[in-house]
């Protein structure tokens, strides 16, 4: 899977969970930009990403995801390590 495909898939997952248009998610997109990105949907997002990419985040990583850039970086780190 190319990195642009990873980006696109992360964007699609975030759009579906956070109920925002995928086109509105890009560099600089943060928690504050999505009203639905609360503590519950944060956990839903993590579960959805884990299922979509077949990876498992640590609790530390879960707590560090504050933006699209964070999410994309964490996913990439796991895919590279695999």
């Amino acid at each position, binding site marked *: 899977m190319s990195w642009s495909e990873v980006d696109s898939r992360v964007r699609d997952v975030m759009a579906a969970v956070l109920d925002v248009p995928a086109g509105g998610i890009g560099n600089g997109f943060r928690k504050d930009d999505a009203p639905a990105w609360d503590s*519950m949907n944060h*956990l839903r997002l993590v*579960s959805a990403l884990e299922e979509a990419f077949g990876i*498992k985040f*640590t609790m530390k990583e879960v707590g560090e995801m504050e933006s699209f850039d964070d999410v994309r970086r964490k996913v990439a780190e796991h895919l590279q390590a695999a």
Partner: protein
Amino acid sequence: MKPGTLLRRFLTPGFVVTLRGYLKYGCLISPKAEVEITAHLSIGRDTVIGSFTKIKATDGPLTIGRHVEIATGCVITSHASGVAIGNDCLIGPNVSILGNNYRYDRLDIPIRLQEKVSPKGIRIGDDVWIGAGCVLLDGADVGPGSILTPNSVVSSRIAENSIVQGNPGKVIFTRR
């Protein structure tokens, strides 16, 4: 209802129940709670039961572990298959743990007159946090370390360390 039960329920002042709870179980029952101390009831040491909570253990075993905190306005009732709450649990305000159920397979008899059943009972493991307004019904079996988010409804097996949300409650995350 037996006359003795009726008299005990209406004439026993709250502070007497508090005192009995402290002496018998080493727990703290608010004088404003309504706890029926019967042979079916068992409460662990240092458990706290908040005001306006009703605990009814007249129809079956009801076991509450040690260091459990039960907030205000909860209802906990047991039936034949029992209700068991583990140690170190947190139970938020207005939680209902209802161990009894009714049959409803006959249309010619009002449901309230059909048999009361509790085929499975309710089990809550150690270190479970139940958010405000949750409802646990017959068959709920919550694994240790789980969290039920507010207003979740659970009547089935929940694996340990799960975070549950919704009606019916679904696992949205697993603690790790």
